[in-house]
């Protein structure tokens, strides 16, 4: 099996920050607006610190990954959250051959 180098259009969105109401509502609302499909969500809170990892599919999307990453990062910043959207290959490549 060869690793998907940009063959896939999946991305990982990570959100880190102090827990507050509406984080998931905000991000999923934004994703729905851009027609980005959520494939998986895992979320935990440790000592009021919110971490969420989301796997999304940009195939049906009407926005590119680079723009999506920029918008989520900016809006996340305003809420005091560190939000990253990165192509999945960076995670698969780093840990596997």
């Amino acid at each position, binding site marked *: 099996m060869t690793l998907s180098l940009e063959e896939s259009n999946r991305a*990982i969105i990570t959100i880190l920050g102090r827990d507050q109401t509406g984080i998931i509502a905000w991000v999923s609302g934004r994703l729905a607006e851009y027609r980005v499909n959520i494939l998986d969500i895992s979320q935990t809170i440790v000592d009021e610190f919110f971490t969420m990892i989301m796997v999304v599919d940009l195939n049906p999307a009407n926005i590119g990954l680079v723009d999506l990453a920029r918008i989520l990062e900016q809006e996340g910043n305003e809420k005091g959250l560190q939000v990253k959207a990165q192509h999945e290959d960076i995670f698969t*490549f780093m840990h596997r051959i």
Partner: protein
Amino acid sequence: MTITFAREEIQQTIKMIHEENLDIRTITMGISLLDCGSEDISRMEQKIYDKITKNAGQLVTVGEQISARYGIPIINKRVSVTPIAIAAAHLNTDEMVRIAKTLNRAAREIGINFIGGFSALVQKGFTVGDLALIDAIPQALSETEFVCSSVNIGTTKTGINMDAVLKMGQVILKCAQLTADQDGIAAAKLVVFCNAPEDNPFMAGAFHGVGEPECVINVGVSGPGVVAKVVKEFPAADFSELSNLIKQTSFKITRMGELIGRAASKALNVPFGIVDLSLAPTPAIGDSVAEILENMGLERCGTHGTTAALALLNDAVKKGGAMASSHVGGLSGAFIPVSEDAGMVKAVEVGALTLDKLEAMTCVCSVGLDMIALPGDVSAETISAIIADEAAIGMINKKTTAVRVIPAIGKKAGDRVEWGGLLGGAPVMAIHPFSSKMFVSRGGRIPAPLISLSN
């Protein structure tokens, strides 16, 4: 399609990038200029300018797009070209300076950080073009911003060209004198090699060797901060465990280089050459090779045990990295520049790290005496003797060694110089007061060594 992401792996990747300074140091595009020759210097300048801007015109944009897509910083985009002494062998010294300015103009046009290849390979002797280029180096580097120069003065197979060593001492001093008001920055863009690699993406020594394809993408990774962190987390690990930890980390760092190299190659439609496995520090706090050695248990980098610690580090980086990439090349090892590494600077300041110890350390790592400020009253012959020592280490040990020293005009040992950016700043280091003039002035070549009877 299955979803097989481990939460810990995702968190680790993010932490390495955002907290431990993991980045891609450089995407370097190598471009052949062998077809740019012309009797007419103006025509030749135009051909070189056109070829670079055509091939690398999209390099910066593509680098920024890839960086945004994967969420990993790519610090520099660079170009390396065929050694100008070969590509423009028929030119005189003044014309060589014009070519350097052409390279500079092309670099500015496409927005890259550096362009390397104002270079000559003179390990066995000089051609007319080599001499013209070497004589042009001081003016070329002091009157350009982005151009980097390198001269290979020895190899294991040919021995050391001591005439070239003598000349390069003078050239380095002249570079520093011409840019004395900027702490000798022209000398920081010049490196003297033994066993220079032809596919090195790192500056100042990058050039596009004659065995290379028309155009190629090479990638240099960084990541001392990541290694320093993992070494710190396991203070009780014995040497086998320590080596394994570094190997695992180096694997992950190098995979990033492999990913970015493949992506850049695909986007630019240029073949992917190599990943250079080097651990390249930056002046940023926490991105230091010295800190890795100190985290292994040395009170200060440079004390007894430093060479052994560095040997282990360098070997483990290569073992881990080699598994991670299809093609490894360039310099590949831990770098120990002084001014570019906050931990090295500190070690010099407290008196733990000396020039002699750095020389010993270069026996077991990449690359050589790098980014070291020398007292301003250093003689050209002393610089030549420093080059000869370092070249001898490379020649005998069948490895690349290099010298990039910067005479700090008007300053003495202990004073500080500042170059800024990735080059950083450093205290001026003390040198031996005794002369080597008669030795380096003998002329001729040091013969190539036996490579059997290897004790």
